[in-house]
């Protein structure tokens, strides 16, 4: 018998936003149902409705049964008795879900006391047990620590411990790994697995990440426009998807193995306030037929294991490549060998320390050297806090760095006058991560694009023509010019951001996580656009990203950063094929793959521990505390070298474009 049964659930937010439109599913004991969808697909509204946490004013219709008991229509007080005891939630943002003024041990103990009526003492003891279960080292002591004393990954663990404190029968996890680094993400998924095994709970795993679902879920439900468009056992869904949207989603995913190029899904998700009468995906669907617009298609059985897809044109989706034809690698042949092309950006021994109290300093960037040559893309990868964004901002300041030297297009930034700097800004432009926060909400697209032109003295009469040209260049329509950023979809807004950066015809573009904030289906489109623009406008890119799968599809060369230093740099293809530094290897291992089989087979946690604290001083190799290579070293002499000698970047081989900062690089080959 299933634990959680949802039948024909509708959720409508005021005034008339139809977030969920008739979704049905069930989850059995110990089963993980992955709910996958892009922003606006209704997956979070679904989770909140299941928990009875829909915001005031929301109308919830249909049925949610937890072990046969109806939850829809229960009062909040009645739901409160169930929540935390029978059904629990792992929230997306643990910092705001944990109270900052109580210790984590007390907070977990509280949930136990409230529901189980245990004594304070027993509840505390249980809290420590739970913290041990989710892998908090030194749990008895850490139970007395406050939430801010934990790292992001550790906080997630605490959240999970709290959720399973009362042995719930159902667990709802909303983006449990959102915003985490890949190495930590892998750890958290492991903890979630442990938690499920310990409680035997039915798990509803809500995420946008198909890679996460592949390894962690038993069955997957794909949501689009408030509908469950396809439900299937995980292997079935990844290998034989039938709904065009699922096919497109899987094909648009950038893959770290570089097997296929991501294919974008054109268009934007439907408006939830005014959904089309028929299939919500029909306007973007490459195989849509007239009938698609008639009525909402009901899910029909299409395969074994309860595989259902909501599509009226199933005959067209049997061959996946016919729906979204694979793109051929259109990367143009490189014009000249690397050493003959001019250097457009050169960073030498860059240092940036942020002074703290007590004579301490955060060593955000601590001696970074690289260069970018004309016509190439350098990808700068690393976990959050490794200093990659600081490198970018230091370059953009166009001022004398704290230490080292930055040369942009042959000009040393330390010796620039104000006029020189402004002139150089024409050639050096930036695209930010979040398009909505990088566009002034009070300006229309036309005004946003006109700003750099006006600032650099383009005659007023010529501006509108150039604005229109820019819109066309990034694939936007003229009508977008009169819109405000809010009236754009995420992908469109990022295109505006790119158009603004291109307005002054720069030669070097710095991109900070250009697709990290976007939905998967539009990511591919942006990546394709960047590729095309680079070739057409003869640009060079420096792309900062945490996602190695994304970088695989844009970077010619790759630099991997750890704790303020580069640990490996060289030809991107070669690094992806054969990473040398243990950190690069671990990072690549940790990238979730949209392939259930491989996800289940691979090493569970490629890297232990948290990202390092950049204010802690270190003598030897900075990666040592987490290094699997160091852990495997037998000889004391070799270990000593790692402990006392900080490795610098060294050429691996004179004939190969690869530098590695590891004492044991040669043997690792």
């Amino acid at each position, binding site marked *: 018998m299933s634990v959680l049964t949802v039948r024909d659930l509708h959720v409508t937010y005021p005034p008339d936003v139809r977030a969920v439109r008739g979704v049905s599913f069930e989850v059995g004991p110990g089963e993980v149902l992955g709910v996958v969808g892009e922003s606006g697909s209704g997956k979070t509204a679904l989770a909140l409705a299941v928990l009875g946490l829909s915001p005031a004013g929301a109308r919830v219709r249909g049925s949610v049964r937890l072990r046969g008991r109806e939850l829809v229509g229960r009062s909040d007080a009645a739901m409160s008795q169930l929540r935390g005891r029978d059904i629990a939630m792992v929230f997306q943002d643990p910092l705001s879900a944990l109270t900052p003024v109580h210790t984590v041990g007390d907070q977990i103990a509280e949930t136990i006391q409230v529901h189980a009526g245990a004594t304070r003492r027993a509840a505390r003891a249980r809290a420590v047990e739970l913290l041990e279960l989710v892998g908090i080292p030194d749990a008895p002591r850490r139970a007395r620590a406050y939430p801010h004393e934990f790292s992001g990954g550790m906080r997630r663990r605490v959240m999970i411990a709290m959720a399973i404190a009362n042995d719930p029968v159902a667990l709802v996890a909303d983006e449990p790994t*959102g915003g985490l680094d890949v190495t930590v993400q892998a750890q958290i998924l492991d903890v979630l697995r442990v938690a499920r095994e310990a409680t035997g709970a039915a798990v509803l795993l809500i995420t946008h990440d198909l890679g996460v679902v592949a390894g962690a879920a038993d069955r997957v439900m794909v949501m689009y426009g408030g509908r469950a468009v396809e439900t299937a056992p995980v292997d079935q869904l990844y290998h034989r998807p039938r709904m065009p949207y699922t096919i497109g989603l899987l094909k648009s995913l950038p893959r770290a193995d570089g097997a296929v190029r991501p294919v974008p899904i054109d268009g934007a998700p439907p408006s939830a306030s005014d959904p089309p009468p028929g299939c919500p995906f029909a306007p973007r669907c490459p195989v849509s037929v007239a009938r698609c617009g008639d009525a909402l298609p009901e899910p029909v059985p299409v395969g074994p294991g309860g595989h259902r897809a909501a599509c009226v044109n199933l005959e067209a989706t049997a061959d996946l490549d016919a729906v979204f034809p694979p793109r051929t690698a259109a990367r143009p042949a490189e014009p000249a060998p690397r050493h003959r092309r001019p250097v457009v950006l050169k960073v030498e021994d860059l240092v940036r320390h942020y002074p703290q109290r007590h004579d301490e300093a955060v060593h955000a960037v601590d001696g970074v050297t690289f260069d970018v040559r004309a016509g190439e893309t350098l990808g700068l990868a690393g976990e959050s806090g490794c200093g990659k964004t600081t490198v970018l901002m230091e370059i*953009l300041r166009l001022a004398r760095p704290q230490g080292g030297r930055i040369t942009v297009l042959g000009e040393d930034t330390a010796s620039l006058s104000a006029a020189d700097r402004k002139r150089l800004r024409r050639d050096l432009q930036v695209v930010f991560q979040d398009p909505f926060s990088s566009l002034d909400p009070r300006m229309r697209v*036309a*005004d946003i694009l006109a700003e750099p032109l006006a600032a650099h003295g383009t005659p007023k009469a010529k501006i509108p023509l150039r604005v229109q040209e820019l819109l066309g260049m990034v694939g*936007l*329509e*003229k009508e977008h010019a009169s819109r405000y950023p809010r009236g754009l979809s995420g992908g469109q807004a990022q295109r505006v951001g790119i158009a603004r950066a291109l307005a002054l015809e720069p030669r070097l573009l710095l991109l900070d996580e250009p697709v990290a904030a976007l939905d998967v289906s539009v990511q591919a489109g942006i990546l394709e656009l960047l590729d095309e623009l680079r070739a057409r406008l003869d640009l060079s890119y420096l792309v900062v990203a945490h996602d190695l799968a994304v970088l695989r599809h844009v970077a010619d060369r790759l630099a991997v950063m750890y704790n303020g230093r580069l640990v490996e740099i060289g030809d991107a293809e070669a690094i992806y094929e054969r990473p040398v530094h243990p950190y690069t290897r671990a990072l690549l291992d940790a990238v979730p793959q949209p392939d259930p089989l491989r996800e289940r087979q691979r090493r569970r946690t490629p890297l232990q521990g948290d990202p390092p604290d950049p204010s802690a001083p270190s003598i030897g190799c900075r990666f040592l505390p987490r290094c699997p290579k160091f852990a495997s070293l037998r000889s004391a002499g070799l270990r000593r070298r790692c402990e006392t000698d900080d490795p610098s970047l060294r050429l691996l081989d004179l004939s190969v474009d690869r530098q590695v900062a590891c004492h044991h690089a040669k043997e690792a080959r």
Partner: protein
Amino acid sequence: MSGRHVSEHGVSEHGVTGHGVGDHGVSADPLDLPSPRALAVRRLLHNRKAMTGLVLLGLLFLFAFAGPLVSPWGHDEVDFTAFREPPSAEHWFGTTGSGRDVFALTVRGMQKSLFIGLCVAVLSTGLAAVVGAVAGYAGGWIDRALMWGVDLLLVLPWFLVVAVLSPAVGGRWPLLIPLLAAFMWMVTARMVRGMTLSLRHREYVLAARFLGVGAPRIIARHILPNLASLLIVDASLGVSVAIIAESTLSYFGYGVRPPDTSLGTLIADGSGTALAYPWLFGSAASLLVLIVVAVNLLGDGLRDVLDPTPSRHGSRPRPRLRVRRRYGGPA
């Protein structure tokens, strides 16, 4: 709100076909967009709240300046036959204890108060916006110097300073405007500075800086417009505060002097006997309320006009993005 809707549709009608440069190459402005200012004016004209406030304010001005022309009595004339008379056909708003016509006094007072209230509010909010934004955006020694000045003015007993300076003011009441404004802007300036500090690290401000846009332009185009709500509310509140502040000064003889008068003075004089002789107090007080209502309506409307955030119609909610971090070094 409906105004925005209408005007934006007006805009998009022009540009739904293709985006090729050649399509519209003949026209000087291929996008054919109204300037931001024209757009704001158009929206203002369609905004019911703003227009109500504007019309009401216009009527109040008309009342204040046309009133003396129709009133049979002057503000400095005394009717020795009528002391503390309730409103009648002869004295429309009644008379005071000294036999002066309340209608004549009220319209006379309103002329002053409207000017003082509006000018002081605009001046002090403007000063606060500029000083606060410059201090917050520039940082460093400019910030320290400006904030030092703000703190100095905050601890200075303004009433004493005005009292000392009042001989210089003499009967020239317009001098009260800069004097009052000079002591009303500091708290707002601190607020503006604080908000600017957070706006400074917003990506769109960073983006503008990296595009080579100069600091004055960034302040004018990105910082201040995004503080518009705060500034408008501050200015609306400032109107009534200035009118009352002027009456306090006048009460002690530093502001508008008899036989001249102002709304604040009338309210202060009449409030003691408000229950026994309500007309002494009521007419001036209700006009003050009307002024404040008009200004607030206009302010609310302006805020709607300047804020592109859709609140009720059409547009879908902003997609939630997964953003990993913000800019700026560790704190």
